[in-house]
């Protein structure tokens, strides 16, 4: 009798944490390999390249703090994605909601400039939240009323908002003393307080951490969070069992929009200090990747966003020390996401050795 040995891929009933961590490590390793390959193609020294990315990201105390600055909007857009995706609402409009937050906050700033600093700060933040919430509400309302897919409407709104801002900056809000499409500089009294001297780390970072804690509590500890998860897992059963899924969807989209709006205010009043049409470097979209990598867990968004903030800064140093364009960072982000999703899908299966004759 001849014994044949074969392999068989089987689905696991339970995925152990060890398997999950293992798959994550493999994903990171493969991402590094793929990134290295890209550097080779770009005719750069791979070791130098990685060292540059690391140094730029967390190499010095200052670089690390700057990575936190970059992470601030990413934490918020990541959180905005988490809450929407947990309810299986595919909000891709974080970018537009971020800009709307900046726009409404700037409007509030121009209207209430005379308020004392603390009151002005509160007002601008409040308006950023409201602006984002309204921007999130619109596609949700259209979905509820006319069953229009939110993926389409949220993406389209991104463009509408960005061109609207472009119009504002070429006319009503333009700084007359400058050629560029940008507003005058924000008065110091309205700027977000800096947390550490000689750095750009601002109040927004604290707000982002607080937002993560609030969303964590909201999703896993409150009745609304229960409803959000129920709706995400099974909207039909949720409806049958008395959850108002339309109302829940509207609330979720408003929260999601508000959180992105806060990111916009943070960039405007904490970092850029002028309203411009490029205050976001695609933070809305990167937030989606971050949320996925964080497994849609609000608290896990924080470390992943910090890692990505570092990656963005690291790629800037990469560009100056090697000849590789910093745009590589977007490729790296995509590579990490793809390998991670692949590894997570694979960790559900196991390889079994089969014997037969």
């Amino acid at each position, binding site marked *: 009798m001849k014994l044949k040995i074969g392999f068989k891929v089987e689905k696991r009933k339970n995925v152990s944490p060890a398997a999950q961590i293992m798959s994550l490590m493999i994903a990171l390793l493969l991402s590094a390999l793929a990134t290295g390959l890209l550097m080779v193609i770009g005719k750069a020294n791979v070791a130098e390249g990685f060292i540059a990315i690391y140094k730029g990201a967390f190499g010095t105390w200052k670089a690390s703090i700057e990575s936190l600055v970059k992470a601030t909007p990413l934490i918020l857009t990541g959180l905005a994605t988490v809450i929407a995706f947990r309810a299986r609402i595919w909000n891709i409009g974080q970018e537009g909601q971020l800009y709307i937050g900046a726009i409404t906050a700037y409007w509030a700033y121009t209207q209430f400039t005379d308020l004392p600093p603390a009151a002005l700060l509160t007002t601008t933040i409040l308006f950023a939240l409201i602006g984002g919430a309204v921007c999130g509400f619109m596609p949700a309302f259209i979905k509820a009323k006319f069953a229009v897919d939110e993926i389409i409407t949220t993406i389209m709104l991104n463009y509408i908002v960005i061109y609207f801002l472009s119009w504002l900056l070429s006319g009503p809000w333009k700084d007359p003393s400058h050629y560029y499409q940008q507003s005058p500089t924000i008065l110091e009294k309205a700027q977000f307080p800096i947390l550490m001297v000689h750095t750009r780390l601002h109040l927004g970072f604290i707000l982002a951490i607080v937002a993560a804690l609030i969303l964590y509590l909201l999703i896993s*500890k409150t009745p609304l969070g229960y409803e959000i998860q129920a709706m995400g897992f099974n909207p039909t059963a949720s*409806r049958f069992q008395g959850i108002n899924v339309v109302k829940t969807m509207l609330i979720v989209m408003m929260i999601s929009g508000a959180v992105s709006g806060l990111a916009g205010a943070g960039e405007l009043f904490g970092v850029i200090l002028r309203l411009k049409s490029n205050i976001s470097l695609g933070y809305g979209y990167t937030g989606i990747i971050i949320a996925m990598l964080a497994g849609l867990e609000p608290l896990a968004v924080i470390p992943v966003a910090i890692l990505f903030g570092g990656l963005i800064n690291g790629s800037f140093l990469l560009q100056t020390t090697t000849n590789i364009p910093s745009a590589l960072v977007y490729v790296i982000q995509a590579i990490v996401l793809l390998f991670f999703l692949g590894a997570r899908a694979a960790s559900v299966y196991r390889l079994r050795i089969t014997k037969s004759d």
Partner: protein
Amino acid sequence: MIDNSSIVIETKNLTKRFQNVVANDCVSIDFHRGEIHSLLGENGAGKTTLAECLFGFYQPDSGEIYHKGKRVTLSSPRDAIKLGIGMVHQHFVLIRPFSVLENIAMSSLKKSVLLDLTATEQKMGFLCEQYGITLDLHAKVWQLSVGEQQWVEILKAVYYGVDLLILDEPTASLTPQEANQLFSVLGQMKKQGLSVIFITHKLKEVMDISDRVSVLRKGKLIDTVMTSEVTKEDLARKMVGRDVVFQIKKDRSTIGEPILKATNLRTQNDRGLDALRGASFTLHKSEILGIAGIAGNGQRELFEVLTGIRRLKGGEIQFNGKSIINNSPEEIKNLGIAHIPDDRISEGLIMDFSVADNLILGRQRDKDYRKGPFLDRKKIIDSAADLIRIFNIVSPSPLNRTRFLSGGNLQKVILARELNRDPKCLVANQPTRGLDVGVIEYIHGRLLELRKLGVGILLISEDLDELFSLSDRIAVVYRGEIVETFNTPDASLEEVGLCMAGTGGVSI
């Protein structure tokens, strides 16, 4: 008589484990050509696992499978289909947005890029006619009733021209008439030399249809016998391991005052066609009102309008004298109308939630389960532990994921959740569909208990035996109308059956 040369498929000492659970323990069975062979056993006895091994979906951990005397390794359903083995699963594997024809043409094995819908339609039309099945081939699958979807699954397998057909609980969603039709179709197929493995836990069906029956209990093969040589009681004892009471003892209760009054209900189904066309009935306290009817006559829509999930186009529903037609599902539940949907997995439960979370589904905002703005986890888990104990739900802990529970336990979770709200009225749509004897016995007992406590129960069922043994009155629904209402002791199965077919009494 059966001889060895006619064996189509055979297992020898087949063992299949899932982690620590032995689903099949050294099972040796043979299945013959032109035979209807029942696999009988309670849920979790290992019937489906055995069938899935024969269909190549699972691979046995040890033991052998022989196909026509040759040892085979079935590493996927594809291998099984190549050998002429077809299987209709308990949970349908149809693509819901596609039409019946598309579903059948798509899974056909012909290697062609384009779907030949015309040829499929011709052949399907012929098959339907041959077996006397009425089915709208152009309807989308999601628009079909569960019973109709079952036909699609069976026809799909027959369409391939299999010579061994495995049916997993095929009658779970059929009316008696539909089941009889299925039996006659299977009889015809048997005459043409087809073998059928018929998985069931219904003893009556085993006796009616099968040539031989194998009884499984806790993964072990208890016995394989000729059906003609045993009685129902023998089989029940082998299956459950103890004597089973078949007749439910129902004491006469005095029906109370009206609690739920539906007048002239009109609504449309998902296809936009009239599903309810003026249905009226009155349910009283301490009464079980059965709703009998062939699948797709408006039962589903009736259930949905009563629970607030579907809007009425006309008519009136009064609960304790107050109109509820504009109330949300949540408000209706809060008024004291509990419900059990027929599709427990997609409508009754969040399978990825823990058992404890499912036990409060719909009540997550109740003060009972809250501490300030937060959910009171401790209370939720404690109350879940109580309900798990009271309702005999088999779950390792309240935090166990609901997905890992068996069908009977899923239904008990729903029952526990609904009864925990002390309902005044219960609307149940096929509450025992697809469950095993033990659980059915349990649920029937609970329903009668509720009736004794004064609860009015609307029992929508396609199982006439169930309706006759539980209901005080049976209302027959036909094409969206209640065509006749019978007092159970005075009604005969034939009369009710005729009404269900639309040839009975006059509209009331």
